[in-house]
């Protein structure tokens, strides 16, 4: 029955694959838009996990068009050990801190039981903010 959803499961698999390739990076640039005016932000004052990797990546800020806030662009320099998963997570967490004042944690304690079938999905969700296309 699970086979019916092959194309969707493939999506999950892709997310897993993206996660597993924790090796130095295929994409060196990652950009996110934060709904805060450029005038309120400073590269050296960004909160959260972006601050933790700030000295190993290049960060640039630019005003987003149409009042959409500020674009935060991160470039991983050659030779930096920071992975693109770490950058994605940092950008997402920092955006949430700047916009919502907090980073949402998953519900807990968990109600699920680990099974063989669950394993690929759990691998993805344990690193939920590291994968994707960002």
């Amino acid at each position: 029955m699970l086979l019916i959803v092959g194309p969707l499961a493939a999506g999950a698999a892709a997310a897993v694959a993206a996660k597993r390739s924790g090796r130095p990076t295929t994409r060196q640039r990652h950009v996110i838009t934060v709904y805060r005016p450029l005038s309120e932000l400073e590269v050296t004052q960004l909160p959260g996990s972006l601050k933790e990797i700030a000295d190993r990546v290049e960060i640039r800020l630019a005003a987003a068009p149409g009042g959409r806030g500020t674009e935060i662009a991160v470039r991983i320099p050659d030779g930096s050990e920071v992975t693109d998963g770490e950058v994605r997570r940092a950008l997402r967490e920092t955006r949430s801190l700047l916009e919502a004042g907090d980073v949402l944690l998953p519900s807990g304690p968990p109600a699920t039981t680990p099974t063989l079938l669950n394993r690929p999905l759990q691998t993805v969700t344990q690193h939920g903010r590291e994968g994707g296309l960002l």
Partner: protein
Amino acid sequence: MKALQWQGVNKLAVGTVPDPELRNPGDIIVKVTKTVTCGSDLHLIGGYIPFMEKGDVLGHEFLGEVVEVGPDVRRHRVGDRVVVSSFISCGNCWYCDQRLFSLCDNGNTNPAITETLWGQAPSGCFGYSHAMGGNAGSHAEYIRVPFADVGAFTVPDGVSDERAIFASDSASTGWMGADLGGVQPGDVVAVWGAGAVGQMAARAAELLGADRVIVIDRLENRLAQVRQHTGAETLNYESDDIAGELRERSGGRGPDVCIEAVGMEAHSPGVQFGYDQLKQQLRLQTDRPVAVRDAIHAARKGGSVFVLGVYAGFVDKFPLGALMNKGLTVRGAQMHGQRYIPMLLERMAKGELVTEHLATHVMPLDDAPKGYKMFKEKEDGCVRALFVP
């Protein structure tokens, strides 16, 4: 505490799980007093959305009493009776500011899955798989509600639990279909599906001034509810010529707004159904889009089609030619509950929006597996099974 858990495809059981904890300072814990089935759950139970883990707690349409509040919560106190939006939104990102709450950037802890599938990630939802954040659902004695100042709403004293609970999801969804579908006074509106969502969409279209609202289904008991409680007209797709009737009832123009409230497990009496089911089983498409096809074909030139039914992936035989050449606007969304719930509660208090009849079967949470079976098989005229934990 007791909770209804997904144990595998088509396997549900009531089990014991740990009580939820406050995790973020904006959280509240709600003691669930009523929680109800939704058509969306059927897609999870049937395995059409393959991001469930054994043990996940289902349920996203609910109401209850606040029993614990985090230090940052301002709008709620212990003892408040609240109804909660099924989607979780931060209230502060650009999408929330545009009142597109289900698109919130900060409400899903697992954005990777849906971003990979769809290009961008919508927000999280209660009890709706790990693709939607893996949040524990409401078919339990207690539930944690994040961003509670944004997503939980105090129910006015005059509104019963049985009425208010549907503001949580189905009434918000239906209202959104009519509102963002662009219903104007004088419009002819057709709604596919007479479940709770379709009925609420029909009622919303009337309250927004539609001249004629026509609801399509095959289940006579649901169509009878439509006639009695929403005042809309009905058509049965097993006995009526839907395309012909819609054309006739709209003076040959076609409905101005078509609202699809059926979803990826749509049924149809003709060859289309066998075709779609087979393709779904062969993994050549993930969803059965029968009602969307019909809606696009029926809509008037320059009209709009709003897709409320849940789809997960790809469909086949999508009538792109009709869409393009007729100049249609096609939109869809997961529901923006926070945008509509306060207004819906006011209308419920005034008696404009009546929903109690939707909860055809009320039972203790212990009987939830039986309730879902009745809901899925539409046994005994079940429209929604409502559980009391």
